[in-house]
C-alpha cells in the first residue's frame, strides 16, 4: 500500500515537472546533492547577476554622461585656446607693426636731418668755390700773369706760375682754368684738349660761361663742352668770372668743376648704413654726383637718368620724405629737397634702404642678424615678412624664394599668401589665410597673417606678415590631452583621452592628428586622403554645435563634440572626440571583475554543497536501497545504520517497521484461506439456482457463510411460493384481455370518423364568420370616413365663411386707405404750391439782398454793417431756395408714389371683391357636400351593425360544433386507449406466464 502511494506521489511530481517543461533544468534535482547544488548556485548567482546587470547599466550611462560633459569642456577649452592663440598672434603682429611704424618714422626723421646737413654742406662748398673764383680774378698778381696772353697769343706761361696754378686748382677741386677773350677765343687753358685761338661753339658750356661771365661771377650747370671733339657727350660745369684790367673787360676766366668734386660729401653720408646714399640730380634728370653703386662715373652721364617721383617733387620746390622706388628700382625711404646753386637748381636726394631702415642689421657673435629675425625665432614663426604697399617683399627673416618678389604681381601672387596680401591691401585691415601648400616654404602647409602698417596720416606704409607655425596650432590642440593625462596620473581615475582636431571648409585637416595611421596616412594636415566629411564637420562648418555619438572619419564609433571656429575669414570645424570603446573600458573591466567573482563563487558553492550533501546522502542511499526491496515485497532486508543523526534514527525505525509488517501479513493469510474454503462450498451448492431451480437448498455451516446459506434457503422458499401465484393470475388475465380488446377497437374507429366530420363543418362555419365580420368592419370604417368627410366639409365651410368675412373687412379697409391716399395727394399738391411760393420769395429776397449788399458796398465804410446783414439775408435766401428746391423734389417724388399707390389700391379693391364672390360660391358647395356625406354615413352604419349581429350568431354556432367534435374525439381516443390497454394486458399475461415457466416449482403448492 505504502509503495503504491509513494509511486503515485513520485509520478505526480514527475508529471508536474513535465508539464512545467523544467525537466531539463531540474535534472540535477533527482538527487539531494543535485538539488542542493542547483539551489545554492541559483540563490547566490542570481542576485550577483542582477547587481552586475544594474551596475553595468548605471555605470555605463553615468560614464557616457560624464564623457559628454568632459568632451564639451575639452571642446570649449580648445576653442578658447585656439582663439586666444590667434589673438596673441594678431597682437604680436600688431606690436611688430607698431615697432615698424616707429622705426620708419625715426628713419624718416633721420633722413631729413641727413638731407638738411648735406644740403648745407653742398651750398657751403659752392659758396667757397664762388669766393675762390672771385678772389682769383681780382688778384693783381695773377692779373698780371694773364695780361700777356691777352696781348699776345703766343706768350708762354711762366713755369713757376703754372705749377702754382696747378696746385691752386687742385686744392680747390677745379679741373681746369680757361681764359676766354670776350669774343670767345681761347687765350689760355690748363686743359690740354683746348688749343689757343680756338673759338667756343654756341650753346655749349663755355659759350654759356662766357655769356654770363662777362657780366659777373656765375655758375654754369653741366652741359656739353665745345672742346672735346672725341667725347662730344662729355659734360662740364664752370664757374665763370669777368677778367678786367684797370676796369676794362679783357676776357672771362672759366673754372672747370672737377668730376668727383662732390664725392666726398655725397658718397659717405653719415648714419645711413650700407645701402644708404645721397645724390644730386639736375633738371635734365642726370646725376650731378657719382653713385656709389656704379663703377662708371654717373655724373652728368646720359646713360644714368634719374626720373623718380622724388626728383619731380623736389624740382617743383617741395621737400619731403616718402617711401618709393629709387633710380635702381629698390624700395627706399627717400628724403628729397632742391638745392639752389647760383641760379641753378639741383635736387638732393638721400635714400635709405627700407629694410635697413626698419630692421637694421647688426653683428652678434660674428653673425649678422636683425631684431625681426630674432623676433621670428623667439615666437617660433617660420618666417616674418615686411611688404611694401604694392606687394613687394623687402624684408624676410628667412629670405626664402619669395623674398624680393612681388606678392601682388610676382610668381607667388596666386598662393594663399598672395591672396591674403591682396585682401589686406584692399581692406586695409588684418587679413588671415587658411593653410595651403606654399612653394617657398618647401611646399609645406603654411598659413599667413598680414597686418597693414599705417602712417600717422592713416596711409598704408607697409605690411607686416607672419607665417603661422602649424606646430604651435598642433600644440594648442594637444594641450587638453596632456592635461587629461596629467590628471589621470594624479587621480588614478580611468578617463578616456579626447582627440581634438581642426577641419577646414574643404573638409581637410588643419591640425596634425596624434594618430594619423588611424586614417591610413602618415600626416593628416591638408592630406586629401584623410578627408573628413562626417556629420560633425558638416554641422560645425555650418555654424551648429552639438555633442553626440557618431562615426568619425576613421570609421570608429565615437562620442563627439563639435563647434565652429571662426577667426576673421577663417572658418574651421573644431571637433573633440573620444572612442566609445575607450569610454566604456571601465565598464567592461567592471563586468570582467564581476564575471570572475561569480565564477569563483559558483565553484566554491559547488564544492561546499558536494561536501555537505555527501554526508547526508550515504545514509539516505542505504534507506532508499532497502525501500526499493520493500517496494518489491521483500520485507526481509534491513537498512545499514551509518550515522547517528536523524537519518540514522530513521534507518533504525524503518528496520523495526518492516519486521512488524512481515508478522501481520502471515496472520492475515491463514484467516483468508479458511473463509475461502467456506465460500467455495456455498458456491458449489447454489450453482443450480442459476438455472432457475428453486428447489435446491444450501448447507448451513457454523461460520459466517453458514448464516448466509440459511438466509438463502429461506429466501428460496418464499420465492417459490410467489412464483406459483403469479403463474396462475397471468393465465386468467390473458384470456379476459383478449376479449375486451377486440370490442373497444371497433368503438374507437366509429368515434374517429364522427370527429373528422365535425371538424370539417366547424372549419367551414369559421371561414363564413370571418367573412361576415370583415364585411361589418369595412362598413364601420366607411361610416367613420363619411363622418370625417362630413366634418371636414363643415370645417371648410366655416373657414370659407370666415375668409369671406375677412375679405369684406379688407375691402372696407382698402377703400378707406385709397381715400386717405387721395387726400394725401391733395395735401402734397398744396405743399408743392407753398414751396413754389417760398422759392419765389427766396429768389426775390436773394436779389434784394444782392442789391442791398451792392448799395452797402457803394456806401463805403458806413455801409459795412448793413452789408453784413445784407450778405446774411442773401445766404439765408439761398439756403431757403435750396431747401424749397429739395422740398419740391421730395413732394414730386411723394406725389408720384401716391399715384402709384392709388392705382394699386384700385386693383386691390377689384381683387378683394372677386375673392369675396368666389368664397361665397365655395361656401354653398361645401354646405351641400356636408349634407350628402351625413346621409351616406347613416346608411353605412346600418349595414355595419346588421353584419356584426350575423357574424356573432355564426361564431356561436361554430363554437358549439367545435365542442361536440372535441368531445367525440376524446371519446374515440379513450376507447382506443382502452382497447390498447386490453391488448397490452393480454400480452403481459402471456409474458408473465412465459417468465414464470422458467422456474422449477414444487407441485404441492398448486
Amino acid at each position: 500500500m505504502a509503495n503504491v502511494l509513494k509511486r503515485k506521489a513520485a509520478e505526480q511530481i514527475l508529471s508536474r515537472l513535465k508539464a512545467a517543461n523544467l525537466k531539463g533544468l531540474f535534472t540535477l534535482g533527482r538527487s539531494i546533492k543535485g538539488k542542493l547544488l542547483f539551489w545554492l548556485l541559483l540563490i547566490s548567482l542570481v542576485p550577483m547577476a542582477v547587481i552586475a546587470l544594474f551596475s553595468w547599466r548605471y555605470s555605463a550611462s553615468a560614464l557616457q554622461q560624464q564623457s559628454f560633459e568632459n568632451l564639451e569642456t575639452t571642446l570649449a577649452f580648445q576653442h578658447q585656446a585656439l582663439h586666444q592663440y590667434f589673438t596673441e598672434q594678431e597682437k604680436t603682429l600688431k606690436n611688430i607693426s607698431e615697432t615698424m611704424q616707429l622705426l620708419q618714422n625715426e628713419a624718416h626723421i633721420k633722413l631729413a636731418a641727413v638731407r638738411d646737413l648735406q644740403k648745407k654742406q653742398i651750398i657751403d662748398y659752392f659758396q667757397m668755390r664762388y669766393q675762390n673764383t672771385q678772389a682769383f680774378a681780382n688778384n693783381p698778381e695773377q692779373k698780371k700773369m694773364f695780361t700777356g696772353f691777352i696781348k699776345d697769343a703766343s706768350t708762354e706761361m711762366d713755369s713757376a706760375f703754372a705749377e702754382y696754378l696747378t696746385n691752386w686748382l687742385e686744392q680747390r677741386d677745379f679741373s681746369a682754368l680757361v681764359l676766354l677773350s670776350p669774343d670767345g677765343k681761347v687765350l689760355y687753358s690748363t686743359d690740354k684738349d683746348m688749343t689757343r685761338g680756338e673759338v667756343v661753339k654756341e650753346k655749349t658750356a663755355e659759350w654759356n660761361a662766357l655769356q654770363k661771365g662777362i657780366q659777373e661771377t656765375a655758375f654754369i650747370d653741366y652741359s656739353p663742352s665745345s672742346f672735346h671733339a672725341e667725347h662730344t657727350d662729355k659734360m662740364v660745369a664752370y664757374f665763370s668770372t669777368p677778367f678786367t684790367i684797370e676796369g676794362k673787360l679783357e676776357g672771362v676766366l672759366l673754372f672747370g668743376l672737377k668730376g668727383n668734386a662732390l664725392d666726398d660729401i655725397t658718397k659717405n653720408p653719415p648714419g645711413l648704413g650700407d645701402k644708404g646714399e645721397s645724390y644730386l640730380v639736375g633738371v635734365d634728370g642726370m646725376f650731378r654726383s657719382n653713385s656709389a653703386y656704379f663703377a662708371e662715373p654717373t655724373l652728368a652721364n646720359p646713360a644714368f637718368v634719374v626720373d623718380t617721383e622724388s626728383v619731380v617733387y623736389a624740382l617743383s620746390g617741395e621737400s619731403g620724405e616718402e617711401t618709393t622706388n629709387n633710380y635702381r628700382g629698390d624700395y627706399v625711404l627717400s628724403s628729397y629737397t632742391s638745392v639752389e646753386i647760383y641760379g641753378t637748381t639741383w635736387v638732393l636726394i638721400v635714400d635709405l634702404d627700407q629694410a635697413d631702415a626698419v630692421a637694421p642689421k647688426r653683428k652678434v657673435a660674428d653673425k649678422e642678424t636683425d631684431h625681426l629675425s630674432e623676433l621670428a625665432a623667439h615666437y617660433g614663426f617660420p618666417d616674418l615678412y615686411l611688404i611694401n604697399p604694392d606687394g613687394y617683399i623687402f624684408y624676410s627673416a628667412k629670405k626664402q624664394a619669395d623674398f624680393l618678389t612681388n606678392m601682388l604681381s610676382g610668381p607667388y601672387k596666386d598662393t594663399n599668401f598672395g591672396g591674403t596680401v591682396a585682401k589686406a591691401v584692399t581692406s586695409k585691415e588684418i587679413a588671415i589665410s587658411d593653410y595651403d601648400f606654399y612653394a617657398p616654404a618647401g611646399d609645406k602647409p603654411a598659413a599667413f597673417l598680414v597686418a597693414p602698417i599705417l602712417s600717422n596720416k592713416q596711409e598704408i606704409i607697409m605690411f607686416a606678415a607672419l607665417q603661422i607655425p602649424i606646430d604651435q596650432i598642433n600644440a594648442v590642440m594637444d594641450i587638453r590631452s596632456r592635461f587629461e593625462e596629467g590628471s589621470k596620473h594624479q587621480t588614478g581615475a580611468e578617463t578616456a583621452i579626447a582627440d581634438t582636431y581642426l577641419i577646414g571648409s574643404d573638409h581637410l585637416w588643419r591640425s596634425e592628428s596624434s594618430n594619423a595611421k588611424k586614417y591610413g596616412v602618415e600626416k593628416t594636415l591638408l592630406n586629401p586622403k584623410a578627408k573628413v566629411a562626417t556629420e560633425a564637420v558638416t554641422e560645425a562648418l555650418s555654424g551648429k554645435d552639438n555633442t553626440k555619438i557618431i562615426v568619425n572619419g576613421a570609421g570608429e564609433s565615437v562620442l563627439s563634440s563639435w563647434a565652429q571656429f571662426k577667426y576673421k575669414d577663417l572658418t574651421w570645424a573644431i571637433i573633440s572626440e573620444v572612442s566609445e570603446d575607450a569610454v566604456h573600458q571601465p565598464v567592461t573591466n567592471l563586468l570582467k571583475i564581476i564575471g570572475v567573482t561569480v565564477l569563483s563563487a559558483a565553484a566554491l558553492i559547488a564544492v561546499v554543497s558536494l561536501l555537505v550533501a555527501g554526508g547526508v546522502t550515504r545514509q539516505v542511499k542505504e534507506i532508499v536501497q532497502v525501500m526499493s526491496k520493500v517496494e518489491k515485497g521483500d520485507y526481509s532486508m534491513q537498512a545499514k545504520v551509518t550515522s547517528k543523526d536523524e537519518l540514522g534514527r530513521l534507518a533504525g525505525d524503518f528496520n523495526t517497521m518492516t519486521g512488524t509488517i512481515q508478522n501481520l501479513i502471515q496472520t492475515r493469510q491463514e484467516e483468508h484461506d479458511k473463509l475461502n474454503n467456506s465460500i467455495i462450498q456455498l458456491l458449489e451448492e447454489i450453482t443450480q439456482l442459476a438455472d432457475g431451480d428453486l428447489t435446491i437448498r444450501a448447507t448451513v455451516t457454523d461460520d459466517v457463510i453458514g448464516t448466509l446459506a440459511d438466509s438463502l434457503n429461506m429466501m428460496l422458499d418464499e420465492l417459490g411460493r410467489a412464483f406459483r401465484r403469479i403463474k396462475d393470475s397471468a393465465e386468467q388475465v390473458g384470456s379476459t384481455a383478449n376479449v375486451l380488446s377486440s370490442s373497444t377497437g371497433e368503438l374507437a374507429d366509429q368515434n374517429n370518423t364522427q370527429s373528422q366530420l365535425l371538424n370539417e363543418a366547424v372549419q367551414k362555419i369559421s371561414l363564413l364568420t370571418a367573412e361576415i365580420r370583415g364585411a361589418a368592419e369595412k362598413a364601420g370604417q366607411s361610416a367613420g370616413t363619411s363622418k370625417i368627410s362630413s366634418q371636414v366639409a363643415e370645417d371648410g365651410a366655416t373657414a370659407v365663411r370666415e375668409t369671406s368675412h375677412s375679405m369684406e373687412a379688407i375691402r372696407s379697409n382698402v377703400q378707406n386707405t385709397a381715400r386717405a391716399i387721395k387726400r394725401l395727394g391733395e395735401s402734397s399738391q398744396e405743399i408743392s404750391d407753398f414751396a413754389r411760393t417760398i422759392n419765389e420769395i427766396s429768389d426775390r429776397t436773394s436779389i434784394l439782398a444782392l442789391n442791398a449788399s451792392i448799395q452797402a458796398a457803394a456806401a463805403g465804410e458806413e455801409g459795412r454793417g448793413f452789408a453784413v446783414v445784407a450778405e446774411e439775408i442773401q445766404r439765408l435766401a439761398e439756403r431757403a431756395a435750396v431747401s424749397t428746391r429739395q422740398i419740391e423734389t421730395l413732394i414730386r417724388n411723394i406725389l408720384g408714389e401716391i399715384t402709384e399707390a392709388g392705382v394699386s389700391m384700385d386693383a386691390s379693391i377689384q381683387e378683394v371683391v372677386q375673392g369675396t364672390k368666389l368664397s361665397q360660391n365655395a361656401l354653398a358647395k361645401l354646405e351641400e357636400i356636408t349634407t350628402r356625406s351625413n346621409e351616406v354615413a347613416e346608411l353605412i352604419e346600418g349595414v355595419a351593425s346588421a353584419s356584426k349581429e350575423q357574424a356573432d350568431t355564426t361564431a356561436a354556432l361554430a363554437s358549439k360544433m367545435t365542442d361536440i367534435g372535441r368531445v367525440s374525439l376524446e371519446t374515440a381516443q379513450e376507447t382506443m386507449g382502452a382497447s390498447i390497454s386490453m391488448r397490452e394486458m393480454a400480452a403481459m399475461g402471456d409474458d408473465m406466464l412465459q417468465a414464470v415457466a422458467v422456474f422449477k416449482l414444487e407441485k404441492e403448492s398448486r
Partner: protein
Amino acid sequence: MPDEQGIKRAALKTVAVRLTGAKVLDQEPVLLFATRQVEEILQDVEVRPLPFAPDWLLGLCAWRRQVLPVVDIAKLHGMSFSADRSLYMVIRLVVPAEDEKENSSRRMLRCILKVSDRIAARELPKQCAAAAIEASGLDPALFKGLFAHEDGMMMVPNLLPTLCPPAAWPEPAV
C-alpha cells in the same frame, strides 16, 4: 486818376457775374464790375424790342422814369451762358469829357445788362495774372483787361465803345 477814397472803395468790393458754361482761354469767364458802377439788380424787366437792332441789343426798358437800353452782354462778346434764369443789372457809366481837364463836361450813362443769375458781391480778386486779350479771340476794344484767376477768367468789360461810340450819341440837352 481815381482819388484815394475811390481806390479804397474799389478795393473793397466788386460785383462778379459768372457766365456759366462759356469758355475764355479754357476758363469760365467772370465779368467784373466796380460796385459803384452797379445801380441795381432786377429780377425781370419789360423789354420793348427795337426794330433793326443788333441781336445783343434786346430793346429798351423803363427804369425809374428813365428809358435805358437793354444789352445781352454775352451775345455782345459772342458768347452764351447756361443759367436757370437771367437777371438784369443796371449799370452806370461815366463818359469822359473830350477835353480831359474839364471835369464838368463829364456825363453819366446808364444801361441794363442781361446777365446770368450767378451774381455775387466779392472782394477784388487778388493774385491774378494778366492775360492777353488778343489770344482770347475777343475784341480788345471791349475790355479793359483779362486776368487769369483760380476762380475763372476775370474780365473787366469796357462798355463805353458799345454804348457811346464817338459822336454816335448826341449831346444831351442841358
